Each structure stands twice: as C-alpha cells, then as structure tokens.
C-alpha cells in the first residue's frame, strides 16, 4: 500500500511507520532531516543555557545576566515540544498532518521567545505571533485546496503523476510555512534571537529551516 513513486526527489522510500491512520515515511531526505531535528531536540534536553555577557556602552563595564530557573524550565519545555513537532513534520506522509505540525511549531516558537522578559524581545514576539496566526490561513487553506481538488491528502497519492495539485495550493503551503517558521523575521526582527537560552532559541531556527526544507520537497514532488 505504501510505496512512494520512484521518481520522488527525496530518494527511495526506506520504510514506513504506521500509527493508525497517521503514517510516517522515511526516505534518505526525510531521514536526514529527522536525524538533524533529533540531534537538536536532544541538545535542548541536555544543555543548560549560557550566561550572556552584556557590554555597558560608553565605558569598560560589562555584566553577566542571571539564568532564571523558572524561565529555563519553560523554555526547555517549549523547545522540546517544538522539537517533537518538527520531528513529526519531517516524516509525516499526510499534507494535513504536516500543516498541523507546522502550526504547532509556530505556537511553540512563540512560547520559546515570549518567555523572555525583555521589552525588545517581547515586542518582536508579539509581532511574530500576529504573523504566525495570519499564516495559518494560507497554511490550512493550502491543505484544503489540495483535498478539494484532488480528493486526497496522502503524499503517496499526491506524489504520483496522475494527480495534479493546483499551483495556488503549493504557493499557499509555502507561504504558510514561511509565516509559521518565522522566516521573514530573520531579517526584519533579528533581535528576537537575542533572548537568553541558546539551546532553546536555536530550536526556533532549527525548526523553521527544517520546515522550509520539508515543504520544498512536498511542493516539488506534488
């Protein structure tokens, strides 16, 4: 039943993992992304945050920021949740499940950043939250157009040449992932990454890049 078309750009299917009607598939491409997400999720579990040193401009003074254990626990929880959602998004074989995992990544990313009590970071997190919310419309809209036009959300069906997915659905999926993965904020709101907690903040970057890589595979294969 689960045999990916051999022309799939992610390479030959290695094996599938069934959880009821949720089916994950591992190709060389998805496996590589999965392993990378796993490494950084493990790092978020075992790492302690850094103690940031800040320079007081206009003099020689500098000061070390204190690590708040409560903040660290919350950020770690969110980073692990983000890692698990990313793991799911990397190997899922269903477009709707992919969008669900992508939106979960968006929510947890807000959580990681918004936990930090700094005015600039909180402002950036608030604006990111708005974009992430808006991005759910094209994200789920893209999946809805896929199912409405083809009658299926299964990648095994969609990746065959027999099924034509409208270009607008693909564009919506990419747009949605860009919003959830905070890609536009990399340039426009880079201060979002100044928050303390390197292993957890890094998870924001990891998840968004991996989501982008996965959606690229999905839209090219469809």
């Amino acid at each position, binding site marked *: 039943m689960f045999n990916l078309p051999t022309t799939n750009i992610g*390479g030959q299917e290695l094996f599938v993992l069934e959880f009821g009607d949720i089916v994950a598939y591992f190709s*060389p491409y998805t496996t590589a992304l999965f392993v990378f997400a796993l490494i950084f999720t493990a790092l978020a579990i075992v790492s302690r945050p*850094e103690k940031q040193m800040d320079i007081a401009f206009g003099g020689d003074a500098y000061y070390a920021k204190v690590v708040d254990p409560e903040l660290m626990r919350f950020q770690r929880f969110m980073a692990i949740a983000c890692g698990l959602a990313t793991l799911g998004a990397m190997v899922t074989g269903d477009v709707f499940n992919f969008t669900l995992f992508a939106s979960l990544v968006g929510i947890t990313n807000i959580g990681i950043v918004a936990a930090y009590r700094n005015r600039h970071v909180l402002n950036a997190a608030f604006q990111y939250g708005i974009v992430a919310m808006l991005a759910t419309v094209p994200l789920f809209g893209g999946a809805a157009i896929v199912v409405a036009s083809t009658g299926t959300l299964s990648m095994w069906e969609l990746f065959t040449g027999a099924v034509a997915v409208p270009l607008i659905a693909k564009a919506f999926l990419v747009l949605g992932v860009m919003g959830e993965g905070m890609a536009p904020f990399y340039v426009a709101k880079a201060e979002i990454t100044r928050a303390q907690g390197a292993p957890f903040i890094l998870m924001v970057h990891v998840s968004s*890049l991996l989501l982008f890589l996965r959606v690229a595979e999905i839209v090219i294969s469809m």
Partner: protein
Amino acid sequence: MIEYLLFATFIGLLFHGIHRKVIARVQGRPGPPIWQEILHTLKFSFKETWIPKTASQTLFVAVVFVAIGIWSGALFILLSGGSLLLLFAVYLLHKIVEHGMGLSSGSPYGKFGAIRSVISAASELPLLATVAVIYLFTGSLSIADIAAYQQVHGPLLILAFPAAAAMYLVILSKMHYGPFSIIEAKEIVSGNMTEHFGVWRAGLEVGFALKTYVLLYAFVLLFIGPLPLGLALLLMLLVLISLSFVCAVTPMLSPYDTVTIQSLVTGALVIYIIVLGVVMG
C-alpha cells in the same frame, strides 16, 4: 571514504591558505605562506583548550561536531551522486551551526555574530533559485542525473549561466574575508568564532575546509560536469582564485546591504525562471 575525507580537508585548508595569499598579493602585501591554514589547524589541535565559564557547554562543543558531520555528509552526497536537495539542506543547516556557535558562548561578540548570521539567511535564496533552474533544465535533482545530462547536452555553465552566477554568489557569501563575511567581521572581534579556540577552533577549521571543498566541487560538478579529479581540482582552484580577487577588491558590506544584494540577485533569477518557464513551455 575516510581517506577522501582527509584529502578534502587537506585541500580545503590549502585552498584557504591560497585564498589568503591571493588577497594579500592583490592588495600589495606579501601575505602568509599558502600552507598557513594547515599549520593553524595543527597548532590549534595541540593548544590548551577549555570552555568559557559563561557558555552553554554542551551546545558549545556539539556545534563543532555538527559542523564536521554535516559537511562530511555533504561530501558523501556529492561523491555518491545523491540528491541536490539534500546538499541544499546541508547548506541551510550550516546556518544553524553559525548561529549556535555564536549564541552558545555567552560572549556579546559571539552573540552579534550569531544575530548577523540570522540576518544573512538571505544568502540561501540564490541557492534555492539555482536549484530550481537546474531542475527546470534537467528534470531531476539527483546529482548523478545532472552530471549525465551535461554529458549529453553540454555544461550548464553555458545553458544556464544566470544560475551559475547565482551559485557563484552563494560560494562568495561563504568565503572568508569577503564582502558578505559580516558574521566574522573584525569590528565584532571574530564574530561567532570569537570564543572557540584550541581544539574546538581546529575542529571548526576542519569543518569549514570541508565546506569550501564541497561548495567548489559542487560548482564544478553541477555547472561543468563530471571530470577527472586532477582537472576538477584545477577548475576549483581557478574558481577560488577568481573569488579571492573579488574578496580582495570589495569592501565588506553592511549587514542589510548583503541582504539587499542577495535578494536582488534572487529576484533577477526568479524573473529568469519565469521567462525560462514560458520559453520551455
């Protein structure tokens, strides 16, 4: 594979040395000997090593292994004719290494480097456009298929010159001392690498040497075609020297200017893709 990995590391470090030498000669300085980067790596391997007290210790060390791991993987993908998309993925994941390297130390200079690495995420856009153009021409993202296509139809350097130019910009973005090297600019000491010294720096040098080798080899393989190793190395050296000239005569751009240039190049390539799509039906 291990011997090829060592060979690629050695050549990559030698290329870094040649890069420094060419820049110096263009700028009228004597410059270091071309094996300087190999000596640097050996020197760092035996220097005293510790982890800064302020660092996120596990992450501080892990990024070094991730850097070596992903570029070793990229070399394997290239040699085995694997997926170009996977190579693109490695390039993107390198951004995480740069970011993690800077953030994990706790140093303000490392942090500034990390933030600049986030800003310079625009350097991935020309690569994505390049991948799209190659796919339009060859109908495949397998490096083996792309190489086979060129043996029949001729090099993509001629057929898809704008894509080759964009890929050239991608490699330039990753070169040391170049106009896009904002993450390791001297106004922020060594940027995200400031706190990595001793054996950690040696590990990073190895990872970056592999990166240079892989990117130059990928350029030759994707736009000229499969060649005997000696000839491929010669072409890689020529590409490197041309990059060194650009680095020598171009001042470092401001962070947002790098984004503007990379976005403009991507925009031009998108127009090229649309025109190509119309022409090719």
